[in-house]
């Protein structure tokens, strides 16, 4: 297990997410997890990244009409970015509150839509930034550092 990928070439993984493409989220998380395991990252770091990817990709599939997820592996951090075209978020602070959800019955029946997605992402991220315009779309940027000195304290 390593704390730094100083000698590993930078890697970018890019996924398209279509409207109501609900099952792609788990596939993205699963594939990125396998890639990061091959790189030898610590299990707890991989878990946090996989959770962010799962929840962020699911949000795109649920709320947007189209979008993509990009995972960028750097020597000391991973950046997870989603960009989507869609409804956008009216009140980001409210959306961040655990339990707040605008998801439909269909989504809830699937085991999502409990209003935990963004708070899960926040808990797993060292740095999180969300920008959104109603009726236009949302961009989410989450970073996870894996050098010892910047290790996530909540994990």
């Amino acid at each position, binding site marked *: 297990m390593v704390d730094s990928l100083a000698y590993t070439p930078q890697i970018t993984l890019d996924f398209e997410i279509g409207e109501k493409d*609900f*099952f792609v*989220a*788990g*596939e993205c*998380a*699963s594939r990125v*997890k396998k890639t990061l395991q091959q790189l030898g990252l610590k*299990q707890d770091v991989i*878990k946090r990244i*996989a*959770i962010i990817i*799962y*929840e962020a990709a699911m949000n795109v599939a649920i709320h947007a009409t189209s979008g993509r997820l990009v995972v960028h592996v750097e020597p000391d951090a991973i950046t997870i970015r989603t960009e989507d075209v869609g409804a956008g978020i009216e009140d980001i602070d409210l959306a961040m509150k655990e339990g707040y959800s605008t998801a439909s019955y269909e989504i809830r029946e*699937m*085991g*999502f839509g*409990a209003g*935990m*997605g963004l708070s*899960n992402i926040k*808990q797993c991220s060292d740095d999180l930034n969300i920008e959104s315009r109603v009726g236009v779309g949302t961009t989410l940027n989450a970073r996870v550092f894996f050098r010892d000195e910047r290790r996530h304290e909540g994990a």
Partner: protein
Amino acid sequence: MTLQEVQELLEAQVLCGNDECLKRSVRVCFACDLISEMLLYLKPQSLLITSLTNAHVIHAAQVMDAKAVLFVGGRRPDESVVRSGESNKIPLFTTMLLTFDCCGRLYEKGIRGDKQ
């Protein structure tokens, strides 16, 4: 206890997982029907008990390194979900019992929740 012992205790049917898989032992269990909660709380090597049967359960189990998944209330996932369990080497079981009874029987045998 081994997964085979779990299977017998919970009167479960094996949907996928060979004899070798059933020899694996399990000490921790987590039961829930919310994928986000699985992502938040499911600890590695746990037995996951759920009444959800869609592909997300397998993805969540794979991402969180669950040892096996048990579907309750006689629920059975589609064949594609079973195949996904198989290819991810996650044994899948189904039982007619409901969550409370499964957890009670397991607790009596010393299986605990993952926060203990």
